[in-house]
């Protein structure tokens, strides 16, 4: 079986964060963790090529997946293996995206990462095998991955007992009892106090209870936030247009207006023409300054925070929220206006 292995720049031995912007490359044979994997797999399997890429490049460049896939295709593998990525977010996303893209075009693929890796939900339809949290758990992670590859090569699907994580595909099947009868049984269980039983697990987006209104806005410090991907013209810090993995802060001191041409939205989920013509449509700085001048709010926070809310992983968005709240609280901000697109 011909295998192509995907790694990030670190595990490929190219470098650390200083090499995170490196574009995709390919080498013949196994590299780094791939050698350990090959040793576990034995002579029926050959890692014919290793494709690798810098974490930043892979996570933020919209064409990265297609570029990587082209390199994978050239090696005409029977199977693409990506990772293990452990809890590394950018690496996990890259593994998930390359595995998903390969699977969609009919190349069998499997990725490996920790269940908390934000890439997990992007791997579908490719399966993901559980790995440890960090590279210290490389050996058991590689062993589990090797067993999974053997199962796949035998034509079987990976199941939970094979270490598969993430949402398993759901298949139709006939139940003994008609749906109406099952509904009555489920309802009786629910009335009886079983609040968990279900045939369709709910997506767990969570919910946030809004806090109480400000008692005294005239003495409050207010922050402006947006998920509309509003950044200075030219996007100097390379905010992604979709599936954001970073958020940014930009100063507002000395600005009363957001002039057309000085700011732009790089959001990939809506037409940005109107927002670019008048950035206040995303970030109401003009009105906020007026309110501050009139004394109706105490002060305006000296920075605004921005990210792109477009296909963002729920786990990623949740961590942004935690970081934003912590930062604003430290800065003495009592309330924030977060504009959504």
């Amino acid at each position, binding site marked *: 079986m011909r295998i192509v292995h995907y790694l990030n720049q670190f595990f490929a031995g190219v470098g650390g964060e200083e090499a995170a912007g490196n574009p995709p490359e390919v080498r013949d044979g196994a590299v780094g963790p791939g050698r350990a994997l090959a040793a576990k797999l034995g002579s029926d399997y050959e890692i014919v090529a290793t494709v690798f890429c810098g974490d930043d490049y892979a996570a933020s460049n919209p064409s990265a997946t297609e570029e990587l896939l082209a390199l994978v295709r050239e090696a005409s593998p029977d199977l693409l293996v990506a990772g293990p990525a452990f809890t590394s977010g950018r690496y996990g996303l890259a593994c998930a995206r390359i595995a998903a893209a390969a699977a969609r075009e009919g190349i069998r693929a499997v990725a490996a990462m920790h269940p908390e890796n934000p890439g997990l939900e992007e791997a*579908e339809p490719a399966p993901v095998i559980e790995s440890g949290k960090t590279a210290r758990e490389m050996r058991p992670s590689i062993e589990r991955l090797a067993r999974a590859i053997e199962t796949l090569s035998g034509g079987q699907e990976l199941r939970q007992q094979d270490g598969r994580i993430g949402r398993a595909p759901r*298949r139709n099947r006939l139940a003994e009892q008609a749906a*109406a009868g099952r509904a009555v049984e*489920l309802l009786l269980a*629910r*009335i009886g106090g079983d609040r968990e039983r279900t045939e369709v697990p709910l997506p767990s987006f969570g919910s946030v209870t809004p806090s109480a209104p400000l008692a005294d806005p005239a003495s409050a410090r207010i922050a402006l936030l947006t998920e509309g991907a509003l950044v200075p013209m030219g996007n100097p810090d390379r905010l992604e247009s979709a599936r954001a993995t970073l958020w940014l802060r930009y100063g507002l001191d000395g600005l009363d207006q957001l002039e057309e041409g000085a700011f732009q939205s790089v959001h990939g989920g809506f037409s940005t023409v109107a927002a670019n013509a008048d950035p206040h449509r995303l970030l109401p700085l003009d009105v906020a300054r007026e309110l501050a001048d009139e004394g109706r709010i105490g002060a305006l926070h000296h920075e605004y925070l921005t990210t792109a809310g477009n296909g963002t992983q729920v786990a990623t968005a949740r961590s942004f929220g935690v970081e934003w709240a912590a930062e604003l609280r430290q800065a003495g901000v009592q309330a924030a206006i977060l504009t959504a697109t």
Partner: protein
Amino acid sequence: MSVASVHDGDRLGTGLRLLAHDVVEIGLGDETSYVDGRLSVGRREATAVLEHPALATVRLVCCSPGDRTRIVKVLDAVEPRCKGADGPPAGANGRLDPSAAGVFPGLLGPARLRGRGETHVLRGAAVVSAGFLPRAQEAVLQMAGAGSELSPLSATHSVVVEFEPAPGAPWEEVAAALRLGVLRLAAHLAQSALAVTPDSVDELEQVPAGSTGLPRVVAVTNIQTQGAFKDVLVYGRSMSGSLPTWIDPCELADGAVVSAQYGHPALKNPTFVHQNNPVVAALRASQDVELAGVVLCPEPVSEHEKRMVSEHAARLCAAVGADGAIVTKEGGGNADGDVALKLDALEDLGISAVGLFAEMAGRDGSAPGLVVAPTRANGLISTGNYDELVRMEATDRAVGGERLGIVDAAATDELEIPVAAIYGSLNPLGWGHLTCAAGP
């Protein structure tokens, strides 16, 4: 015509007696008759009850379970029923008039409350309409082999009504004529069993006023209200723009709800399913609950109307003392919102609620299955994944059309189609056995 009034209460009792006559064979004949389980559909009489200026021609074809037959472009299915001895008398010339059969109030005869007295049923039989109507998505019903198990209607002996519209007739009139004709034919067939001793008798109780101490459960039944060809009639009227209403389940058995909804092959509730409401039947069959009635709800399109209807439905359930409710829908992803909002609204009032959903999880079953999920009420039943493909072997015969547009193939060809195209397969009222779960 005599119509039961409230003063007939003592004579009619407090429930509905369903006199069931089992049908084990069906065929066309010279005269309509029901003898020893064989239903003969009289060509001349049946054609006469279907006659309408909006229909140029009608053709009748009989199909039975196990036939190597595929019915395509299925529009509706109706179980043959008529009122019994307490119902309207024979019409002129001593002939029974199907329009006065006492069932399908508001469509055959006046829209008076039904659900008491005696009703004859030809059990195991159906009148099925099939053919082209605007907005009707092509529904496939395989009578034998792989795929037939997904459609509960493959187990019935059916007379299929094919039709050609009259030249120039507006499609709405064609649909109405066909609907009325099929109801009349169903009543006409049932009338052939009026003098026959039933094979079984079901005593359907009217809703009691909370005497047993068991949990009281309401069947909250959402019905589609999206205009012509995508509507459902309650006592002959659309519920579009209405607030929810409570009815006694016995009224359903007499045809209080008739489908005029021809979209969503797998996600529609045919008239047959309203007559035999599976949620009501399952609640009646349970020893552990008390049926507290049916709340019928329209499915408006806008979110604020969906919320309003949901709140009113929950309040109606609370008013009849419900401890629980089972919520069902009709239609695609938009209608998920109606179920989700009602489940949350019911549980907010302290009424335990379970909803039936079909999943739209993609061909490989890996996408999120619900278009709109409840936020709090998490007790959900899956009636299967809409998108998964099913292979069906070729058949010897096709009824309802010669070609299938969805796959651009002859209607008798071997097919690979999504479950969504199989008539009744994901039935939102819980008719079928299909479900969906993770893993192999």
